């Protein structure tokens, strides 16, 4: 049986196609999300790559911010449940998930059998999210992928506000205009995101193993600083931003079986 998970975030669309709930046939990431052509393109590409058509897919589950607008799905499940399922498959000992997506950050407590025991999300604010890192990378004139390496070379990390993206943006501009080294600003940005998200994680209680998902977990400095902040090892999900789509595809397989 072939199933698919489609994770439609605010900044990207991710698809995982699974065979018998085990073998990944294809995985696609397109860097545009809800409200764009991204979800449909990602889905089309994921099935075309393995010479399948929609009829070959027994069940499709959509998740993420744009889950309710994707017409090709049989069911919608929130990213909270899908991330939990995906991580449990990859790291069975998981107890705490930190998911930093494009527009929100969440901490998810995992109970027996990989089920969600509780969760908490950021408030109506972009601080501590992927969007925050995007905005800051633009000001630093670097690709978001290079932010970790730049931050790692900091000599005198500065403090950046984590209460508001707009205020933080003007703070960064002001620091750069007064000659603060870009790497010191980059380290401040990493610390700002970690400080904000670690607050959420502490609220639900930090229990090992802690796994981070979402595109932001590709930033190795965030992982390192998060470990220091929480005082426990933090594992980056092996499937990073595809973890939610994997979880959706697994849930599709389980509900269709």
């Amino acid at each position, binding site marked *: 049986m072939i199933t698919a998970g489609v994770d439609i975030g605010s900044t990207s669309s991710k698809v995982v196609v699974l065979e018998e709930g085990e073998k990944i046939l294809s995985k696609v990431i397109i860097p545009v999300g809800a409200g764009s052509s991204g979800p449909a393109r990602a889905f089309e590409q994921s099935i075309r790559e393995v010479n399948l058509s929609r009829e070959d897919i027994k069940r499709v589950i959509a998740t993420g911010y744009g889950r309710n607008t994707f017409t090709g799905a049989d069911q919608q499940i929130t990213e909270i449940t899908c991330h939990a399922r995906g991580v449990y498959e990859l790291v069975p000992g998981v107890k705490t998930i930190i998911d930093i997506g494009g527009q929100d950050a969440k901490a998810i407590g995992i109970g027996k059998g990989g*089920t969600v025991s509780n969760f908490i*999300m950021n408030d109506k604010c972009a601080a501590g999210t992927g969007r925050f890192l995007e905005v800051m990378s633009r000001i630093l004139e670097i690709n978001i992928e290079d932010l970790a390496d730049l931050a790692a070379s900091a000599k005198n990390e500065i403090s950046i506000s984590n209460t508001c993206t707009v205020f933080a943006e003007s703070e960064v501009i002001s620091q750069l205009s007064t000659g603060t080294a870009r790497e010191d600003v980059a380290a401040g940005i990493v610390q700002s995101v970690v400080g904000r998200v670690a607050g959420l994680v502490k609220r639900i209680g930090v229990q090992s193993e802690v796994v981070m998902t979402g595109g932001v977990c590709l930033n190795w400095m965030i992982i390192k600083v998060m470990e220091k902040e929480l005082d426990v090892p933090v594992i980056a999900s092996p499937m990073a931003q595809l973890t939610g789509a994997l979880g959706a595809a697994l849930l599709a397989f389980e509900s269709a079986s």
Partner: protein
Amino acid sequence: MPEKLTSRNLLNQLQTRHYTNAYAAKMKGQLVGWATSIFPQEFCETMGLTVVYPENHAAAVAAKRGALPLLEQAESEGYSVDLCSYARINLAYMKSQAAEIPIPLPDFILCCNNICNTLIKWYENIAAELNIPMILIDVPYNHGYEPTPAAIDYIKSEFGECIRQLEKITGQQFNQERFQEVMILSNENSRAWKRALDLNQAVPAPLNGFELFNYMSQMVCARGRQETGELLKLLIEELEEKIRLGKSCYEDGEKCRVMWDGIACWPHIKHNFKAFEKNGINIVCSSYPEAWVLLYEPGNLDELAKVYSMIGNNTCMEYQADKREREVKNFKLDGILFHVNRSCKVMDFMQYEQQRLVAARTDVSIMNFDGDQADPRNFAAAQFETRLEALMEIVAHNKSAKKSKEVTNNDPA
């Protein structure tokens, strides 16, 4: 054949009358007061005074999507966006009187800080701006489980001062016999309101939570009045009939029973209702409407002082946790939604610890969301929906796990 009067129709009539009567009284040159929502109304009711409630008015304005212009007006006058949105709406209204539902300006104001202390500064502003008298009933916070004897004496002494000030403002004498009648009626209404709220313990619940918020307005504005008793009698009859027929308030049935903790998110109430209905989630109880159940022995001023002192926000952590724990059990709750209300700092301050206490004592699932009682800008629909659906998924999973466990336990093999 004339249509049968429903409690919903009667509620609408009474609420419309409440506001039109206030205007009519003002036009006739009678005194009109503004009062905080849980002010001991027994005193002004005894004096036969016309009183309107700015918090209720601000909620109605927000529910009709009229809040934003008033909020922006208040902010342009210098009030911080971080202040209570009810206060901002009311302080702006006081200046412009620009709202779809008008209320007359007050000749005196009645303030009791049993729900928050922002009220004092808000009402002092009104009194100073309009140059009118303010009667304050200052209620100490209950650090212990109940008010201390000293606190009761203090509150009673303020009752005496309130009567003295009301006599001075109106030029009339306070009538003790009428006071007793009002207290009896207020208790009857509170008992009926409690009965209506408790009927939602039935599975499925006959009333949805958003209706609870609507009926509540009558308890805010007229809990010492005869007509409120008539409304509640009708409501109880309707609810009992629905229970008898086993009718849920949702056509597709009730899939999940939750408590709404905190004030309603008035500007988005229609959206909130649809999101709940779509998921089959019903708010079967809430700390919000329950606040207007005020029971005491009529004539016993110690009890009157105590009941007005023990309002949600004014009670200690342990008292609040015990109350929630009882409600989880009595209303057979699957979850609790905590409204992290940007306007209500005092409530937010206690919420996380309340969540921890209730989670430790019960197996209820907990979710919180950011919103505001009246400022539409402090709410994100997509975030709310995701949290609500995630809660539903957790509850559905827990129910199915519980069911499988029961099947396994009952399996003779």
